[in-house]
């Protein structure tokens, strides 16, 4: 059971990640704002408290695999990795610049020393990749079971992150169908249910409801959480990992642009960065947690 003190520390970390996202996007002059800010709490929970990964043991064959399918929200991934100790925070300002490890869409090719396992970008591909990773772990476990005396093949849990608009892609449902058929309990998917996509709200562009029922019909377990409640996210992940019957989807209800008042719930902020004035207002708001505390930067 995670302590209240630890939860408060993680909330502060998530807020720091949001500040870094604003700084990165301002420096890059392009990129996505709403999704990364909305997923900062989920990323904090996953990389600091849920997944079996650590910068001290990077490259460990038994590390959990985390696959970012909606790779356009990678600013939150990079900022989280920086706070977790995988890369220097100064490097974050190289986002989208020539020669950077921090490509506009995250991929393993440019950053083999970071826990980025695959290439993402065109939506849905990460879900299929994650199914592949989960099947590989199961195959290794079967080999271990068949010959207990042999050297152990590595095994892991696979965590995949996806957006809700992303689920317009037919490939997602191909992947859900295969994982459901295989009762792929080695896989957990976090869906960012923030209700927006580029052209509008998800229910206007391509309705997804009844959302949870769709997954149940595909033989998935479903947990719904407040995507800004770190304790609930961790509890849901623990439950998912303990599920022996089938794969689990954790539907994370989030506020796109969370923490920056003028961005919250505005689909217009899906795919654009703040300008200098907007960034200054956003940072002031984040540093004072909406005016609740005095900023140390003022």
């Amino acid at each position: 059971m995670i302590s209240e003190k630890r939860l408060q520390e993680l909330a502060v970390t998530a807020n720091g990640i949001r500040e870094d996202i604003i700084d990165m996007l301002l420096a890059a002059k392009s990129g996505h704002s709403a999704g990364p800010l909305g997923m900062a709490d989920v990323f904090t929970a996953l990389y600091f408290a849920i997944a079996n990964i650590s910068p001290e043991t990077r490259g460990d064959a038994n590390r959990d695999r985390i696959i970012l399918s909606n790779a356009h929200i990678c600013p939150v991934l990079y900022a989280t990795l920086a706070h977790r100790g995988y890369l220097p925070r100064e490097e974050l300002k190289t986002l989208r610049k020539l020669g950077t490890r921090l490509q506009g869409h995250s991929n393993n090719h440019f950053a083999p020393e970071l826990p980025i396992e695959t290439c993402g970008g065109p939506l849905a591909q990460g879900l299929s990749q994650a199914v592949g990773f989960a099947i590989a772990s199961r195959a290794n476990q079967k080999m271990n079971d068949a010959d207990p005396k042999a050297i152990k093949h590595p095994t892991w849990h696979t965590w995949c992150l996806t957006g809700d608009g992303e689920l317009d892609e037919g490939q997602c449902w191909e992947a859900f169908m295969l994982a459901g058929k295989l009762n792929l309990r080695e896989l957990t998917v976090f869906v960012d249910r923030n209700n927006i996509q580029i052209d509008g709200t998800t229910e206007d562009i391509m309705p997804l409801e009844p959302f949870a029922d769709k997954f149940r019909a595909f033989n998935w377990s479903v947990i719904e959480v407040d995507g800004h409640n770190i304790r609930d996210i961790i509890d849901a992940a623990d439950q998912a990992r303990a599920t022996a019957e089938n794969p689990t989807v954790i539907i994370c209800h989030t506020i796109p642009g969370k923490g920056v008042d003028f961005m919250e719930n505005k689909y217009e902020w899906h795919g654009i960065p703040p300008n200098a004035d907007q960034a200054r207002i956003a940072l002031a708001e984040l540093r004072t947690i909406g005016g609740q505390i005095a900023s140390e930067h003022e």
Partner: protein
Amino acid sequence: MLNESQHLNPHIFDPNVEQVPTRNGYGTALIELAEKNPEVMVLTGDLADSTRVLGFWKKYPDRFLECGIAEQNMMGVAAGLALAGKIPFVSSYAVFVPGRNWDQLRVSVCYGNANVKVAGAHSGISVGPDGATHQALEDIAITRVLPNLTVIVPCDAEETRKCTHAVAGFVGPCYFRFAREKTPVITTTESPFVIGKINTVIEGSDVTIAACGPLLAEAMNAARDLEQQGISAEVLNCHTIKPFDINAFVASVKKTGCCVTVEEHQITGGLAGVVAETLGRNFPAPMESVGMPDHFGESGEPNELLKKYGMTKEDIIEAAKRSVIRKKK
């Protein structure tokens, strides 16, 4: 007239030469590979029998993945498996794989340099009665433009078997294609096969005939007829489209002065495209092409279709003569 160093089937010019579908060599090799390497896995999209992976499924059910008719997901799953240390072979028809999941091949597999082996069966016009939708005539063009990807067109069942072993032997993505019909057995177990190395199956001095896939047999028969007409043709088995064996190819055309390309594929972007680019950069020379002339196929028997669209021995002979005449002008 066969190049002795190639240890080819001595009965290749016999009208009753043994014929085997190239895909059979794939199924045989997968089981041989699986015995040696526990990381080998096979995926298919509801085409286990016709892609010849049914035997693997029966023998190694834990290493076989039936993905259903969902090729986009299948390619992404294969990428995940490969990046987790497995050696996945994705088995489907070339019109679907890579025809239907090129984006997944590009991003999940090639960009990430995932060690995925992609097998496209039922390629070429000789697929026959199923018609144009199922005759893959563009797969070479759309795969050879992808960085990191090796592209191979084996000429017969035995070369397909060797090719399957060879692609498992290196780390990196690969696409290779098979035909549906029985085609002549050209090579033997003794014949050399190295990825990226052209095999000169017949040596000659007047014209280079560069072929890939089962039409290599037609090219060899054309060379034999040309010899009787006083034209000495050199026949190259250009099984590896990418990386192309530029040195061996240019050396042959420097010797003969002209060439003909032969393939069951659109002339645009296939072996003809590779050869045109190679000659243009290294040794401009007259070139003629036998292949699909920017057209879709249709239903019909394989031999009828090959004749209608100009991919027979007679078409190769005529193209060789045109090429030789252009050289003399």
